[in-house]
């Protein structure tokens, strides 16, 4: 129960930005990939909140999936024990990463695979481009993969004249709609059936003009559209849900069969896996194969899971490349209080329960990792300065922690990152932040009874501001605006409590 006692003691606690920082692993590079948004969260959120269609779609989808998850989780009497095992497996793995990576590498090589290492997004993209070029093709099929989204692989391939065809239905909807994914699991969660039908009719040359907006018909259209591509594809690119160090086995968990198509039909398979996706031993999958499907789609088991080890003569791709990706993960590992973000198994349960995500949607977060997990993962992968607003994109209600299958204490890491951001800001600016100045002023006022009483009375001035809708919204003053542009205040009462008490009970001030 006492999670605090289970957490490691950090020897680096209080580490300031001194010369030792130069020794620390670098974050993911700028200018490549999809970890950084164009706008700060409050600005982007304001925009998405104004989209009523989006809010309806999201509200409906998250409500449905929350109920499904709760039902299948309740079926397992040992759910909490599974979560704890999952958490400990991840903590153990992160502490022994070099050994497990080396073990995985030799197991894959022993079974006929080729292992590549990529320091960052640019290096991973370059490796893929070289491999695809060597095959002489200009089109590849892709299994939905967060890692490839993160490094902007499709964009990098496109620049080289290689078309990357997304084969997951939701990814296809996003790709055809020239859109961005907004959810880890259901990237097109922001689209409803009518919008999807329009996109298909507009973008699919082979779509039947009589296509209806029934989900069955839409899925059928995607099946028809992709089938010819699958049957003739030469190179496929995938991510991996798990990499088992002991055996060199990789696993992809999916629903539609597009994963199976990509993993078995082409001659060449290229898999990109973050270095944190390791699982020590085969039997350990018994934990994650119970935790993941129930947490993500709310199913007892997802329709298809494929597992392969290197190359198998006569079955599936005869050439297999595994790319092990860092791209800022080792920088996360260097923060004792933040590194549990690496334990994430990408189930997206935290998105579905988050009151902020449910209203703003995924695009507001700017990164491919949205929602609560994105708010702690993205700023750590990029460095806090590039995603400084994300740790504040939360009410700290803790629902994300409750549903996390590997018990990542997301609220605690959010608070840690807020502190880190404040410290970074203070170290870099000689003028204190608005918040720091306000708190210093408050300390002066509150340290004297007279000053405090006057200050409280002056709060009544706020009544002027809140006249229109009985609440105070954005206040267009320097300093104050920063605080109020994302927060509403109740309009202050006519009388302070102290004045009321004095009036009711007489004199003693």
């Amino acid at each position, binding site marked *: 129960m006492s999670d605090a006692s289970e957490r490691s003691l950090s020897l680096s606690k209080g580490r300031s930005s001194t010369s030792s920082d130069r020794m620390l692993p670098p974050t993911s590079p700028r200018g490549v990939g999809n970890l950084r948004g164009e706008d700060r969260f409050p600005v982007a959120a304001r925009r998405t909140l104004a989209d009523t269609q989006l809010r309806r779609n999201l509200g409906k989808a998250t409500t449905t999936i929350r109920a499904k998850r709760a039902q299948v989780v309740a079926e397992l009497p040992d759910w909490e024990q599974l979560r704890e095992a999952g958490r400990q497996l991840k903590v153990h793995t992160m502490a022994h990463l070099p050994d497990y990576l080396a073990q995985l590498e030799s197991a894959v090589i022993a079974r006929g695979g080729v292992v590549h290492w990529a320091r960052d997004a640019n290096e991973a993209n370059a490796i893929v481009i070289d491999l695809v070029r060597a095959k002489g093709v200009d089109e590849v099929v892709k299994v939905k993969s967060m890692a490839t989204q993160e490094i902007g692989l499709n964009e990098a391939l496109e620049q080289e004249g290689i078309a990357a065809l997304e084969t997951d239905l939701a990814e296809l909807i996003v790709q055809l709609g020239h859109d961005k994914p907004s959810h880890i699991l259901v990237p097109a969660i922001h689209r409803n059936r009518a919008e999807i039908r329009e996109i298909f009719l507009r973008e699919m040359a082979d779509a039947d003009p009589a296509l209806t907006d029934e989900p069955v018909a839409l899925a059928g259209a995607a099946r028809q559209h992709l089938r010819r591509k699958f049957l003739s594809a030469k190179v496929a690119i995938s991510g991996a849900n798990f990499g088992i160090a002991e055996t060199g*086995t990789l696993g992809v968990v999916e629903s539609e069969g597009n994963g199976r198509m990509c993993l078995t039909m082409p001659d060449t398979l290229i898999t990109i896996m973050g270095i944190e996706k390791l699982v020590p031993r085969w039997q350990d999958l018994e934990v994650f194969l119970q935790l993941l499907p129930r947490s993500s789609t709310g199913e007892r088991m997802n329709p298809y899971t494929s597992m392969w080890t290197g190359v198998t003569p*006569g079955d599936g791709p005869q050439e297999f490349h595994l790319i092990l990706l860092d791209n800022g993960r080792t920088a996360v590992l260097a923060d004792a209080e933040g590194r549990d973000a690496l334990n994430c198994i990408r189930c997206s349960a935290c998105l579905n329960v988050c009151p902020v995500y449910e209203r703003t949607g995924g695009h507001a977060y700017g990164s491919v990792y949205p929602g609560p997990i994105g708010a702690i993962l993205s700023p750590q992968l990029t460095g806090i300065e590039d995603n400084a607003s994300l740790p504040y994109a939360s009410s700290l209600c803790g629902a994300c922690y409750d549903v996390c299958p590997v018990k990542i204490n997301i609220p605690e890491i959010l608070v840690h990152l807020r502190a880190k951001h404040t410290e970074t800001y203070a170290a870099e600016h000689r003028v204190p932040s608005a918040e720091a100045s306000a708190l210093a002023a408050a300390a002066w006022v509150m340290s004297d009874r007279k000053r405090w009483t006057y200050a409280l009375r002056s709060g009544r001035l706020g009544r002027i501001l809140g006249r229109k809708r009985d609440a105070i919204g954005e206040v267009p003053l320097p300093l104050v605006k920063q605080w109020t542009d994302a927060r509403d205040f109740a309009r202050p009462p006519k009388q302070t409590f102290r004045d009321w008490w004095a009036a009711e009970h007489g004199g003693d001030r």
Partner: protein
Amino acid sequence: MNAREEVLARIAAAHSAAPPPDLPYEEISREYRTTSDSAIETLTELLIDRLVDYRALVRQCSADDLDGTIAEAVSDRGAHTVVVPTGLDSSWTAGLSGSVLTDGLSADYQRTISELDSVDGVITGCAVAIAETGTLILDSSPGQGRRVLTLIPDYHLCVVFADQIVADVPQALVRLEATRPLTMISGPSATSDIELNRVEGVHGPRTLEVIIVSPSTGSGHIQRSS
């Protein structure tokens, strides 16, 4: 430094800046269930319940009636041409009236993709079935075939013997060899990408039918635990 050395050096630097907790593998908490004493009849009922929930078709028969049950299923489906993997018990398909193609594991005896695309269905066995999750696991051994075999045809008929049914995921993994190509199948292919409505049948077989074979007549009441 090459990329491999550098990534490993970065991990070492991260670990020295923030030493990780000492949690040996053997001490990882494993308080969850890994055994079950449910009788095979209970597990069979649970498996059927889960399969039906995924909208798979289910038939039950005794070992003596397997060929007849397969013939009936194939005929009800209206399938004329089916493909089977090498190693499949030939008596299973003895009752079929249509043509039966065989697909080998070695490249010389394999059907082309377009052949697989034109057959009406595929019949296979499996390695193990998980009752709690309604999952069939194929490991490409004889009678199960290479992975594409159960992917391209639109109808998959899978035979499960009672002694292949286990209670839950942990018991299933113990029975499997990780390095074989493995496919776990829980119902027909599906998507929930459109407004989170489950739609069966995207790229894999749109119909999954399962025949659960109980031991031959007379031994039906033997209780076994997994």
